[in-house]
């Protein structure tokens, strides 16, 4: 008999990296991005930085509502999005806005949402579910959409995303457990950015990694350096290819750090030190990839500035377009509630609108 019957946790998950913090190449992988994709990764990461700054300043000007920040997490988002096919489904939350845009969702769509309006439709052929605000709730949807893809014989893969905090929700468990039990083509992608608002990862769960939670659902797990765009891409690509081949779901933990506040309403100084942030700020995923590209001769002079310029232009155009329409009226709300309204619903709608008209509030904003 052993001294103890209890088997303490000992799943070991090494951190997957292809590029060191100083841009040194650490390894290669058959699933790593090719040269063109590498450039696109860089381009989207640069876009993400510009997007983040722009959204924050729109919020400060009162032109959009509270917005989550993504600074520091660009490699995770871009690495994931570029590893996906356009028809694969992205099922994520407010922290995946860069991934949504890189995957093909229009910037206006996101802007409309944060302007408190109806998000525009996803472009034809882009697989996605709406940006989720209720933490963890999207993961059973991801399992369900993946099951649908499988049942219909499509080879789409569904990527369900969430944060480290979200892994505590019951729906995280139920979504992953369903996906494992029904062996659906889903990949779960957790951006572990160290914090769930003010609650550090270490107090969220006692497991050493989030990656090892995969085993409880009978699926493989992997812990990847979320600031290493090449590694994130390579790992996501492998998991997605594998799911597409019918080999079932996997869980990816991308270890990164939220450098900015949780949202524009958050004051992170209340719960973490400037030192901690400064420490992490040094490991800028954009810089890391640029250093690698420079070392490997893939970086063209002025590339970053060009991409920044392009991103600013795209943002400006999208903002202009989005702000040209305040797209919600009371009618919108009634009409979006039911796809098939009944006669009582239509009468109710009419009465409410008449009442509103009487007090002269329709159209006033």
């Amino acid at each position, binding site marked *: 008999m052993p001294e103890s019957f209890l088997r303490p946790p000992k799943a070991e998950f090494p951190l997957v990296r292809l590029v060191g913090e100083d841009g040194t190449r650490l390894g290669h992988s058959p699933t790593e991005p090719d040269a063109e994709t590498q450039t696109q990764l860089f381009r989207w990461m640069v876009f993400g930085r510009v997007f983040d700054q722009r959204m924050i300043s729109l919020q400060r000007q009162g032109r959009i509502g509270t917005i989550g920040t993504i600074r520091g997490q660009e490699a995770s988002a871009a690495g994931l999005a570029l590893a996906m096919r356009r028809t694969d*489904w992205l*099922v994520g939350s407010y922290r995946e806005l860069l991934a949504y845009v890189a995957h093909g969702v229009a910037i206006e769509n996101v802007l409309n949402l944060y302007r408190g309006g*109806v*998000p*525009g*439709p*996803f472009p034809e052929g882009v697989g996605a*579910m*709406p940006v989720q605000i*209720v933490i963890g*709730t999207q*993961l*059973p*949807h*991801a*399992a*369900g*959409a*993946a*099951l*649908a*893809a499988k*049942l*219909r014989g499509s080879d789409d893969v*569904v990527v369900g995303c969430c944060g480290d905090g979200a892994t505590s929700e*019951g*729906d995280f*468990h*139920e*979504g992953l*457990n*369903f996906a494992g*039990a*029904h062996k659906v083509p889903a990949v779960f992608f957790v951006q572990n950015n160290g914090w769930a608002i003010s609650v550090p990862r270490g107090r969220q769960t006692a497991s050493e990694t989030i990656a090892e939670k995969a085993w409880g659902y009978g699926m493989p797990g992997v812990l990847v350096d979320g600031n290493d765009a090449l590694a994130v891409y390579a790992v996501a690509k492998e998991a997605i290819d594998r799911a597409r081949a019918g080999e079932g779901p996997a869980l990816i933990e991308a270890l990164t750090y939220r450098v900015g506040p949780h949202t524009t309403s958050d004051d992170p100084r209340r719960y973490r030190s400037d030192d901690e942030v400064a420490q992490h700020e040094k490991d800028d995923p954009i810089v890391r990839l640029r250093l690698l590209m420079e070392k490997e001769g893939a970086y063209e002079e002025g590339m970053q500035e060009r991409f920044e310029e392009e991103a600013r232009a795209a943002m400006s155009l999208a903002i202009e377009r989005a702000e040209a329409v305040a797209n919600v009226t009371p009618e919108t*709300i009634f*009409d*979006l*509630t*039911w*796809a*098939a*309204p*009944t*006669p*009582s*619903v239509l*009468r*109710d709608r009419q009465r409410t609108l008449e009442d509103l008209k009487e007090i002269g509030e329709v159209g006033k904003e």
Partner: protein
Amino acid sequence: MKANIVEAIQDAMRVALARDKEVVVLGEDVGRNGGVFRATDGLQAEFGEDRVFDTPLAESSIVGVGVGLAAYGMHPICEIQFGGFLYITMNQIASQAARLRMRTGGQMRAGMVIRAPYGGNVRTPDLHSDSLEALLAHTPGVKVVMPSTPYNAKGLLLAAVDDPDPVVFLEPMRIYRGLRAEIPDGHYEVALGEARIAREGQDVTLVAYGAEVQTSLEAAEQLSAEGISCEVVDLQTVSPYDRETVLASVEKTGRAVVVHEAVRQAGMGAEIAAVIQEQAFYSLAAPVQRVTGWNTPFPFVQAEHLYVPGAAHIAQSVRRALQD
């Protein structure tokens, strides 16, 4: 064919599975076991494990997976084993299924049916007897349908499956097998959102749905011996419900009694009474009465026959409405 309610429901699913390949049936024990009430009996054998399948024991994901299936374009019929467990699914129903269309500006829909047996006087354990329709009626974006006969059970379920909105379909456990009647073979629909007059009458309107329609008819029969003529309105769809039919009946009779077995406070009886007094105030000869469960949780089995409205409870309120 002749069928009781649970057989009618099973037949509806069979028809739905046969006519639309996007329809799938999922839930706990719906496969091999055919459901704890046999509502899905034989369906897996007939349509295969891809169309009718067991899920892990996790209600939030039964609905959540349904939302994902629906978003992708399929039309799931999810079974929740007992209505009381809908509490667990409230977030997936109310914050997700009911709002997917809104959240995508109409691009996606959560067309799906969530079936669950409900109701008391069946001597079931804790939380197996609750009637939670009011929680769902307070949740716009999701329809609530509660059949009362084999005919409308099948027709409403087929309409629910064809509906692009999410529908919670609450089945009257107590009369699953009691009523047997002729129902049409094959496909037919009973339109959602339409009440039916289950019995015509002149003196008072009884508004009911689900199993209490039968109890109301019983009460009406008893009262007719006393010379009281009751009109029984069967809502069929509880949300959004057919206000017009209810109001027309009350305008005729001048008196109304609303019946349900759910908790009284903030139940559907409150809603219906509020609407009647709002819109038919000057037709009302007496206040609208409510015959409902108590303002307590569903009780221990030893007291459930007192809690669930019986014909005597209903008759008492009808007489009261007529005294005023």
